[in-house]
């Protein structure tokens, strides 16, 4: 297993815009104002756009780059597959590239609904086979394109149109499926969480993912606050994204073949309330709910932290 020990080469970190290429997404696309997905997607194409092929599924993200009958919103080839099996469709393409020794970067852009619910089987299968694709999950914590229904990535107590708030129900009563960890445990070449509030970190991770698909599959979990579905003013997207990290609600980490590493840690950790209270979907929360969410947040962070620390110890022991 010599290959698994390889750490991917990466140029010394530069300021984020120095690493970027041409903006391949046109202006005035149909995203809602303040959409995090648009920013996330723009940086995917600016970082990896050279020979990228985008694989998308029905949802907000594909509408942003596929265009309409008058023309495309992006200047890369795209492929809109089915929600159930987009990872398998990209696998077919990736295998063809390898067989014919052609250059290309298959990038799957899927929402949390496809990645963690209906398309999870296909994603997990692709990960197990080590398909050389970059899978980017745009996590807006629900099916925002069809009208804000819950997904298995919807967090605890969150309002959605299928987890209503009223006399008989108070939002979702189960915790979210933490998909990045599940993907890392598939022992794939590269797994990372990213966030549009930390663009430099995100761009570095995209570059690493491109390196990683020389060896196997890369998975990036991008938190995408959705002002329409999460009910907050559209100018707060970046603030919310940063708060998600600063409260340890959405820790930024990466894993190479299951070796975890924290990529950013807040100097001062804020209470999760500061992140939750910015969003209208949590308007109904009581203090005890917040305590529970704080508990869950701490637990999740500690778990990741422990994995990262054990990874460090292993690395030191090897040295």
């Amino acid at each position, binding site marked *: 297993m010599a290959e698994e020990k390889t750490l991917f080469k990466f140029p010394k970190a530069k300021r984020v815009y120095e690493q970027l290429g041409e903006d391949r997404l046109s202006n005035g696309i149909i995203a809602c104002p303040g959409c995090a997905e648009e920013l996330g997607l723009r940086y995917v194409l600016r970082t990896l756009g050279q020979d990228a092929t985008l694989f998308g599924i*029905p949802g907000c993200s594909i509408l942003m780059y596929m265009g309409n009958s008058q023309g495309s919103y992006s200047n890369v080839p795209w492929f*809109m597959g*089915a929600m*159930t099996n987009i990872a398998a469709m990209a696998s077919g393409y990736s295998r063809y590239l390898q067989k014919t020794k052609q250059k290309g970067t298959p990038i799957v852009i899927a929402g949390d*609904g496809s990645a963690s*619910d*209906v398309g*999870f089987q296909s994603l997990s299968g692709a990960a197990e086979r080590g398909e050389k694709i970059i899978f980017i999950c745009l996590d807006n914590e629900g*099916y925002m394109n*069809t*009208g804000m*229904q*819950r997904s*298995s990535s919807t967090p605890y107590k969150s309002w959605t*149109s*299928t*987890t*209503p708030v*009223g*006399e*008989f*129900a108070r939002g979702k009563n189960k915790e979210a499926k933490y998909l990045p960890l599940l993907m890392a445990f598939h022992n794939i070449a590269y797994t990372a969480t990213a966030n549009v509030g930390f663009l430099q970190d995100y761009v570095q991770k995209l570059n690493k993912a491109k390196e990683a698909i020389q060896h196997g599959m890369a998975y990036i979990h991008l938190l995408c606050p959705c002002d329409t579905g999460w009910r907050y003013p559209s100018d707060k997207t970046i603030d919310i994204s940063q708060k998600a990290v600063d409260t340890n609600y959405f820790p930024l980490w990466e894993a190479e073949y299951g070796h975890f590493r924290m990529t950013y840690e807040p100097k001062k950790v804020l209470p999760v309330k500061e992140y939750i209270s910015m969003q209208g979907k949590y308007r109904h929360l009581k203090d005890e709910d917040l305590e529970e969410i704080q508990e869950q947040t701490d637990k999740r962070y500690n778990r990741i932290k422990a994995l990262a620390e054990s990874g460090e110890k292993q690395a030191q022991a090897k040295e």
Partner: protein
Amino acid sequence: MRQRTEFIQGNETCVRAALYAGLDFFAGYPITPSSEITEHMAAHLPRIGGSFLQMEDEISSLCSIIGASLTGHKVMTATSGPGFSLMQEALGFAVMTEIPCVIADVQRGGPSTGLPTHGSQGDVYQARWGTQGDHAIISLTASNHQDLFAMTVEAFNMAETFRTPVVLLLDEITGHMREPLTLPREGEIPVIERLRTSVPEGVDYHPYLPREDGRLPMSDFGGKHRYNVTGLYHDMWGFPTTDPKVIHGLIHHLMDKIENHAHEITRYREYYLDDAHTVLISYGCSARTALHVVTSRRRRGEKLGLLEIQSLWPFPAELVRAKCEHAHYILVVEMNMGQVVHEVKKAVQDPERVYLANRVDGEFITPTDVRNIMRLVHGRGV
């Protein structure tokens, strides 16, 4: 007391009717244009102590209601074409294991992702032949909210009566359209409850042994009686079998229990058919257009009539043959490349009288579209 009238969407009408029929378990997955059914179920079901589940996909949605139905619940799921495609395996399982359930398919343009926000009637054959193997199925549809309410309740009734899945074929246009619905009073539409076995506990119960009238009494799974359920060919105990006699009997039973009762299942509406020279046959949203054409042309003295079919499967061939006996022309109005038109051609004598008036570009078929085709049929040019 005045009856309550509400101005609501077709999808919500479907929810109200399902609750009227006694639904207490719903599982669904969001898909345009049926998501409103799932959303309203999420809001309404907890109020009556029912269960609402949002599943991870459509396969699980249908499978979970199959499980719930076996334990004695009245169950339903809702989806659209792509989701209905995923459900086909489970649909076949429900047919084979004779488990009552209702599947609302709010049709949109297909194949594949197609036209999520536009109407279509392209799933008529998918409802009939989507799952593999010989089988019979019941499928109902409606063109307005009042009928939709009644047909939804009927769907539950037929599912229980015939121990079979029933496909409720709605479409984006009726699903998203708002019009007044007068809510029926309790008892106004009969609701059929599940036929449970009278076999006492400790005595052998045969889940697949029909009574003399062909109905199969059920026992809640995991309750009083121990029995087996399998998608394999099975005998009256539910044990798998390769005995040719038993297989022959089961497949005939699955077909006959529905096809032989087609006259009981047939639901339709007719308008001015007594002296009609030209008979329009339609269903679902396109029947609204057909009705408009018929009523407006009647005022001019043209002898047009409309047969609105509400039970698409089993196809009411005898009814169609009888109603079209004296027609010079038969025009099938539907929003697909021609599905029911083939059934009509098979049903009537002189099938060369049958023409198709359709529209498949995502737009709702208009009276002008129908009139233009009618002029061609009548040899008057456009």
